[in-house]
């Protein structure tokens, strides 16, 4: 059935397994009574349960918690955090500032876009290596096709301060033997030995750890969404507590114009007069 008939079947009602609340009685969360059978979960466990209906072991949860805490930087220079801070400086609301900063974190050169691509790369390559493919060849091919590998190299700086503490925790929790983690380091070794000189960054490490606990790329995308969140409220609050408009004020001289020169508007037609 297609077209309007199919739409007609869904008018006014939702059939779902996501959940519902029954006012005054109970709430169902992905097939479980939220207040009766999920009340022992902390917030992140519940959040992850909502993504794939899975429960994780205590050591796994410690690492998954750390994935968020180790990358929540309240630095308002960072582009996503700066959005939250600018909202505070401009006296917008906290929810607006943080929601916008959260959305901006779904970027292609950092954040969720990189997370997703790193996860997809590691899971795909591991599957190919298991089938007998040569890892060095796969790395070369990826670099040729995509001019980079998500999770390796880093904008602004080369080193990643999050790797060492995360690996210390991973070892402490006995989770350092996963195949995707091993693969992630092997890829780094190839990239460092070759002419590329790219180190693994936190995105590849986190993607590998989540692949090792069974997350698909899309599950990992959703699992990593809160990763930057804790760093955002301090940026907003710091800005909103200061005098308005003081966050990174821009004088006119900081605009470097590289466009056409001044010209006159005549009946919708332009003529270049001089170079500005």
């Amino acid at each position, binding site marked *: 059935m297609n077209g309007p008939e199919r739409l007609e079947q869904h008018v006014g*009602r*939702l059939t779902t397994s996501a959940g519902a609340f029954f006012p005054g009685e109970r709430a169902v969360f992905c097939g479980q*009574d939220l207040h009766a059978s999920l009340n022992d979960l902390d917030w992140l466990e519940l959040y992850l349960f909502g993504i794939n209906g899975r429960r994780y072991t205590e050591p796994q949860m410690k690492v998954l918690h750390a994935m968020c805490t180790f990358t929540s930087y309240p630095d308002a220079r960072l582009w996503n955090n700066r959005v939250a801070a600018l909202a505070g400086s401009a006296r917008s609301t906290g929810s607006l500032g943080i929601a916008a900063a959260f959305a901006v974190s779904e970027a292609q050169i950092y954040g969720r876009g990189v997370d997703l691509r790193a996860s997809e790369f590691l899971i795909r390559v591991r599957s190919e290596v298991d089938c007998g493919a040569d890892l060095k060849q796969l790395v070369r091919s990826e670099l040729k096709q995509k001019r980079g590998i998500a999770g390796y190299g880093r904008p602004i700086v080369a080193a990643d301060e999050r790797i060492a503490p995360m690996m210390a925790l991973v070892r402490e929790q006995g989770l350092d033997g996963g195949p995707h983690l091993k693969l992630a380091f092997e890829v780094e070794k190839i990239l460092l030995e070759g002419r590329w000189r790219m180190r693994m960054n936190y995105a590849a490490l986190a993607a590998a750890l989540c692949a090792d606990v069974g997350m698909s790329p899309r599950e990992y995308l959703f699992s990593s969404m809160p990763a930057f969140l804790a760093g955002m409220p301090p940026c907003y609050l710091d800005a909103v507590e200061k005098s308005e408009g003081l966050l990174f004020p821009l004088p006119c*001289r900081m605009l470097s114009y590289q466009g056409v020169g001044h010209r006159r508007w005549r009946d*919708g037609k332009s003529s270049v007069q001089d170079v500005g």
Partner: protein
Amino acid sequence: MSEEVIHSRIWQEEAEPDNAFAAASCHCHGYDVYGELLGQASWIEYLFLLFRGDAPTNQQTKLLEGLAIALANPGPRDAAVHAAMCGGVGLSTSASCLMAALAVGAGASGGAREVYLAMEDWQARGTNLALWQEGLAIKPVDDPADVWPSLGHSAGFDPHGVRCTTPVLQTLVHLAGLGCGQSLIWLHDHRASLEAAAGLPLAMSGVAAAALCDLGCTPAQGEMLCLLLRLPGAAVHALEQKDFGHKNFPFFSIKLENDPGTAQGGKNRTEEKI
């Protein structure tokens, strides 16, 4: 340490003599905004100038104006407007209503991403019917490395449509009649063949994509313009629902496929109008 700068090919400012943080003059692509454009340029002409970098011709102005009217309000049944109304009915902030409309109206099904994808098709296929027929025969494939969910149908066509709707046809006929560029005219002339190849009727997103190509926009510019141009309807319907109030706004019913019922301590109500 030298002062960092923001680079722009669009905007140039000169500071007031007594305040480095206040502009005395602002030039947009070379035109004096407050000294000349204000009072001489229309809003649509200025919008074109901002995106395309040059003053529009009369045909381009009429085309962008027509597109702006066609997109301004898809009406309260549209998912993006629905999202904005969800903000309005709960007395959420005005910005959150528009953010809701942007988030939903950004989508690859009926939203700005669909226009982006359709514009990419125009770039690749132009007015070559064989290329369109070949491309439309291939179902879009999910990219597991892309944050955008896969599109379940060919971009620019209505996945639930029976035939091209009257407003879509009216828009196509009007915009193609303005004679600005080749895409709209070709789309008008070959609509039936394209619809047959896609197995679906042409949608407003498909008309918008052709119009934006004729305006010389890149897919990224077209996506941005669609996001912007659809906001007026979202805004006014959000405001309207604020006035009507939540008691006059549908809450709908829900049926759970996996209700644990009383087994976990709750009362068993498998279907509830809430």
